[in-house]
């Protein structure tokens, strides 16, 4: 994956995440985790160094466009990315099921980490019931969004020749 493709994906991801309307109340109004999906794709298909860079940049973009203190999302994304990268050699990294499972787990984990950090700061006033709904919502959306994103990113890389043919 070239740096240019990564930058393009991150910018498109953050703008889409900001423009998309909030999801339903029963999902805790969790946003579609588009940036997290990009981090997971890089974690499963690329080197650890690239994944860490991507997670840091994606987190900073998410925090800069929202109200979260700078660095909180990066921390969550790095944790999720490291966990996914750990299993890189043990899973089919280009299978939809893998992306769905990792998307669900990472969506829930990052939301839980952010709820802990923001709750500790006292910056959010959401009840634990909402938090549970949000965590479940983020996991569900992660399972749905991540496979689509990974498929699109893999196609983009193939088109631009930045991914070897044998990986198909």
């Amino acid at each position, binding site marked *: 994956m070239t740096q240019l493709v990564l930058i393009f994906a991150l910018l498109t991801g953050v703008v889409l995440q900001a423009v998309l*309307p*909030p999801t339903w*109340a029963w999902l805790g109004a*969790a946003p579609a985790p588009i940036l997290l999906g990009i981090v997971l794709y890089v974690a499963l298909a690329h080197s650890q160094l690239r994944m860490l860079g991507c997670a840091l940049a994606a987190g900073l973009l998410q925090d800069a466009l929202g109200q979260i203190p700078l660095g*909180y999302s990066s921390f969550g994304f*790095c944790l999720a990315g490291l966990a996914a990268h750990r299993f890189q050699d043990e899973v089919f990294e280009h299978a939809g099921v893998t992306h769905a499972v990792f998307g669900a787990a990472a969506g829930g984990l990052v939301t839980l980490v952010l709820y802990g950090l923001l709750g500790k700061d006292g910056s959010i006033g959401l009840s634990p019931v909402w938090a549970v709904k949000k965590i479940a919502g983020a996991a569900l959306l992660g399972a749905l969004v991540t496979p689509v994103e990974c498929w699109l990113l893999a196609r983009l890389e193939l088109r631009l020749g930045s991914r070897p043919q044998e990986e198909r």
Partner: protein
Amino acid sequence: MRDRTLINLIVFGAILLLVLNLPLPVAGRLKALTRDTLAPLQKAVSGFSRQARESLKLLRGVGGLIEENRKQAEEVARLRIRVGDLQALEAENLQLRELLRFRQKEARALMACEVVGRDVSGWWSMLRLDKGARDGLQPDLAVITAEGLIGRITNVSARTSDVLLISDPNCRISAFVERSGAFGIVSGCGPAAQGLPVCRMEFIDKSRKNPVAEGDEVVTSGLGGVFSQGLPIGKLEHVHTNASGLYLEADVVLRADLGALDNVFIVADRVQPPPRSPEDEGP
């Protein structure tokens, strides 16, 4: 290989610690810079998505357009008659005010803004607008739609501003019930659940001669200095005594639909004139 992994982790951990411990003003400036840089892209994408939504709505509703047109024409005729009546009342009101030497109320100045985004993280009920400090905006200005109050500005960068919606638990507004004159605090209850109220009015005086009732209109009280007086908020529902038994509380059904906001207005009572650039000034 193992050493390299460890070095990566140490380097990125150090960068993350540095970012997490940035002084607030520096972090704020970095955030504002990112927002301003991405603002044109965000505006373009939100404009495109709005157009796509409107085209879809148009395609779906072609059959109903004639009926809708007829209804709108009826509404215009009704509103014209109402404006005529109100003009007569205004003239009478002015005459009486002059007789009593009351101070003239100034018409509210409104600034139209486009909604270009929402909170990326989903933890707050927020909107991002396409105008900022360059247009004279500043924190704590009221944001309304044609239906009523929707929130207040919290953060402002050069090209954008963030609005904390009235449905957010961090948003608390001093309000009063128009019919009975009872004061209270309106606060958000989190993201809107379908069919459920998104705000609650608390600390309503229980001992008034004219008690509050369901269906009463709630407006801003003007106390606290953030919102001007009389901005419509919503209607009361499920009025009941609070747990302590000292006050009444009620759900507030908002007049404005917070889920479908494309254009909003800022009550520009306190808008600062935008700073003049050197090019604006004559020789």
